[in-house]
């Protein structure tokens, strides 16, 4: 019994985490964007509009599920599932604290990126299947954009793996605990700032967020690939977009900002509140994504490709070579 | 400032017989309809340098449609009004190769006055649906008070 239970429990935990996360993030997005633009955001439903997201979910559930004619039936229905499931699977390897983790994977990093690269597949299916010119253009843009930015995203992470020597997210965080020269925390953001910059830019592309929200560019393609979707199918796509931003922000915190550790906090206070610190840091990361979303205009699709292929990839390759040389020099026998 | 009439009369003397007069509007040149584009081309190329067609409008004078071309010279800051007269179902020859700014106003004027547009790259209707009668004609009545009252 316990074997079955211990198998199902993490999955349920992941699903619950994702739903709660979606609800909180949608509310946070509307509030943050609102206050960024001198507005209040939702205020009517519940105190300070807290119940607004549940009202949205209920609305989405109760809406009529329209399937326009001339639509490629099976692909149209399957697409939201292909978009939703990978972002659910991506929760598996995220280390909330030393012990609290859905699964202990020693190739956690590789697994997360592999799963995340499935999402554009669903986007293309959705765009193509809904036989609407706007979604066709949006889907093809999404395909070009996400394929182009998978490469720099992975390349920007390689220096971290080179220094730590393992793909296991837990060990990466363990490597970053403690302090250099007594004052500087051992986070990777300080030595590897360029790779964090490249990671941030290509992460924004992965998430289809401004300034790279090409696939559902409101002012050009109405709602891009998700134009023809209604009720819960749209809900799935919408929810997966938010859980992706949580996963990417969690990765950024794990790789560059020292996961659940804080530099000057002694051990015994840290462990009980470690998941809380981790989630707090992730939400600060998501806030920065929303801050960027509220400010910057959109890049044109060909400039985006230009930036990706001609700038980010060569820069990250050069950076990897540099870090490789430094790692080899400083710790000749170091890489165990 | 008003362009001086003698220069206008001399430029147009070769091209078409035009009678130049001055009214509250300014210097007005009346020419026969079918050599409108040649007259405008002459005025554009002349020393008066009417570089811009500011506006093109039609007026229903009761028995025929009068087309007004409002020209302007930016260097001398002078305006000139070239008028020609067309019968009710007449043909408005497009002047878009002389002044490209006449493209849309010509479509609108032809459609609202019931003229047919010749020599225009896209002579379709601009503002109204296909079977509406020419609205700006004096004969086409506006809704009377009663129709407005019980609409």
């Amino acid at each position: 019994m316990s074997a079955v239970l211990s198998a199902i429990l993490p999955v349920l935990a992941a699903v619950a985490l994702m739903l709660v996360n979606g609800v909180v993030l949608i509310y946070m997005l509307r509030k943050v964007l609102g206050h960024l633009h001198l507005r209040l955001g939702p205020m009517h439903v519940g105190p300070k509009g807290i119940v607004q997201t549940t009202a949205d979910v209920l609305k989405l559930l109760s809406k009529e599920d329209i399937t326009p004619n001339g639509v490629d039936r099976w692909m149209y229905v399957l697409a939201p599932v292909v978009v939703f499931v990978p972002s659910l699977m991506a929760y598996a390897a995220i280390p909330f604290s030393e012990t609290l983790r859905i699964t202990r994977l020693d190739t956690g990093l590789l697994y997360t990126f592999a799963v995340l690269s499935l999402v554009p597949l669903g986007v293309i299916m959705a765009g193509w299947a809904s036989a609407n010119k706007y979604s066709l253009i949006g889907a093809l843009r999404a395909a070009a954009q996400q394929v182009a930015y998978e490469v720099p995203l992975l390349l920007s992470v390689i220096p971290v793996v080179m220094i730590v020597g393992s793909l296991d997210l837990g060990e990466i965080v363990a490597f970053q605990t403690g302090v250099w020269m007594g004052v500087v925390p051992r986070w990777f953001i300080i030595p590897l700032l360029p790779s964090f910059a490249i990671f941030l830019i290509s992460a924004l592309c992965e998430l289809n967020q401004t300034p790279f929200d090409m696939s559902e560019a409101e002012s050009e393609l109405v709602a891009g690939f998700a134009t023809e979707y209604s009720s819960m199918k749209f809900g799935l796509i919408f929810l997966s977009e938010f859980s992706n931003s949580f996963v990417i922000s969690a990765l950024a915190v794990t790789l560059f900002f020292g996961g659940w550790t804080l530099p000057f906090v002694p051990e015994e206070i840290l462990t009980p509140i470690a998941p809380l610190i981790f989630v707090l840091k992730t939400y600060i990361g998501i806030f920065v994504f929303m801050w960027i979303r509220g400010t910057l205009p959109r890049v044109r699709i060909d400039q985006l490709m230009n930036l990706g292929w001609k700038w980010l990839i060569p820069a990250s390759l050069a950076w990897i070579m540099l870090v490789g040389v430094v790692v080899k020099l400083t710790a000749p026998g170091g890489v165990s | 400032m008003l362009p001086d009439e003698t220069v206008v009369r001399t430029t147009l003397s070769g091209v078409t017989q035009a009678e130049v007069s001055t009214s509250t509007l300014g210097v007005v040149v009346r020419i026969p309809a079918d050599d409108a584009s040649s007259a405008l081309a002459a005025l554009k190329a002349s020393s008066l340098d009417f570089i811009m067609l500011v506006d093109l409008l039609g007026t229903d004078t009761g028995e025929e449609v009068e087309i007004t071309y409002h020209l302007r010279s930016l260097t001398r800051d002078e305006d000139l009004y070239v008028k020609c007269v067309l019968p009710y179902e007449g043909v408005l020859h497009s002047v878009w190769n002389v002044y490209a700014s006449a493209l849309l106003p010509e479509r609108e004027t032809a459609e609202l006055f019931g003229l047919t547009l010749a020599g225009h790259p896209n002579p379709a209707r601009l503002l109204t649906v296909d079977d509406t009668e020419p609205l700006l004609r004096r004969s086409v009545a506006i809704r009377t008070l009663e129709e407005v009252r019980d609409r």
Partner: protein
Amino acid sequence: MWGKGILNGMRITMRNMLRGPITVKYPYEKIELPERARWAVTPTYNEDGMPKCTACMACIRACPDHILDLEVTTREDKSKHIEHYSYELGACMMCGLCVEACPFDAIEMGHDYELALTSPDELTIDLLADVDAASVKRARPAAEPKPEEPKPEEPKPEEPEEAAE
């Protein structure tokens, strides 16, 4: 360097965020309108509650959209009784020309902007229904504080030239 403008933009949005929202929470807080705000037309009344309107039809001629209408019965002693003074709120563009045309200040533009209704036929309102019109002589001196010579009889001269409208 390249990203200076972008970072400056981020700083500005953060500064605006810290300035706090400026929205008026409409149903709970209401904006008070300036004194000249023009919304729906409303009749004005004397101190004794009788309307100032003398049924002189000036406003009906002045309205560009012809949406005011007056049904009046004239009794034998020349005093008038207003059956209906109908006003199509749905078609009114609130331009205020009728108020300017009224010689007796009998109508004014109200400040009530919550004019939403549930059914279209409620849009034709009776401003004044079944009430006696004020007589011109009594209204004239009160309405014209300036010592202008009061018109002896009904304001007939305006009538003939309007008929050509």
